[in-house]
């Protein structure tokens, strides 16, 4: 495998979307190519940063309430009637 092919597979390797066969070739290329190996480490790290550092905001209570209303939920009533029916 050359660098070009390895780069095509790079993101798939980071995300576990690579086939067993592809992975074998990919890893053997990495063991021989420092540049691709570094790039692979960088890509993994970048993913990790995004995963860990992007803040997830709370949905506002007003929104939660309106979703409940939109879908016409009266959960307590719904669950009870379903349970005891």
């Amino acid at each position, binding site marked *: 495998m050359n660098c070009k092919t390895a780069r095509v597979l790079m993101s798939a390797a980071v995300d576990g979307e690579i086939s067993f066969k592809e992975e074998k070739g990919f890893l053997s290329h990495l063991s021989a190519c420092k540049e691709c190996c570094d790039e692979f480490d960088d890509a993994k790290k970048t993913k990790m940063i995004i995963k860990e550092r*992007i803040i997830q*905001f709370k949905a506002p209570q007003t*929104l939660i309430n309106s979703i409940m*209303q939109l879908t016409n*939920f009266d959960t307590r009533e719904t*669950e009870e009637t379903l349970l005891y029916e």
Partner: protein
Amino acid sequence: MRIYLEPGRFQIMDKPAPTHQTKTPTKKEALSREERQKQLEFQNEAVVHLHSLYNYALHMTMNPDDAEDLVQETYLKAYRFFNSFERGTNCKAWLFKILKNNYINRFRKNSKEPGKVDYDLIKDFYHSIKDTRRDSSEADTDYFHSLLHEEVYQALHSLPEEFREVIQLCDIEGFTYEEIANMVDSPIGTVRSRLYRGRKLLRVQLEEYAKKYGFNTGDDQ
């Protein structure tokens, strides 16, 4: 209570507070058993993703009011067409796709020039909303982890939308390539290469921030 989004943060109120905009049928008519089943299923399958949808909408609109509207519309549509949701598939992916279509129809008609990044807007937006953020662990040792949330956020938003989108869907929301390909209407190969290029661009941005704040980017530790 069955709904569970986040420990201690989500409660269904017995009497929802009146909201602007939504006109809802308040009549207490007896619902058919079928309808109640649908509601319960919708609640367990779809409403549990409210938090993720809201965050995705925020990233797209950069405006909390628009994000709320977008999520509301999405749930309204999703509930109406819930029968067409293929049971056993990823409901979150289905909802995201609806949300994205809504966004395109509603907001992109009179959108700004593509690829133009308004850093002031990102900064203002971030500051306007950061007080409502969730707590996260601060115990990190890696130099990149010294970057603030805000800088990572800005770096992500400095990317062209096609790259930002796939990174969000993959790294934040955890969708598979197949699900992402379906959401962005592109082949899996395109998703792969956008992720590859997007992460490279992001890396450059993050390194810029790291350098700016005096972190050594030459070594991992």
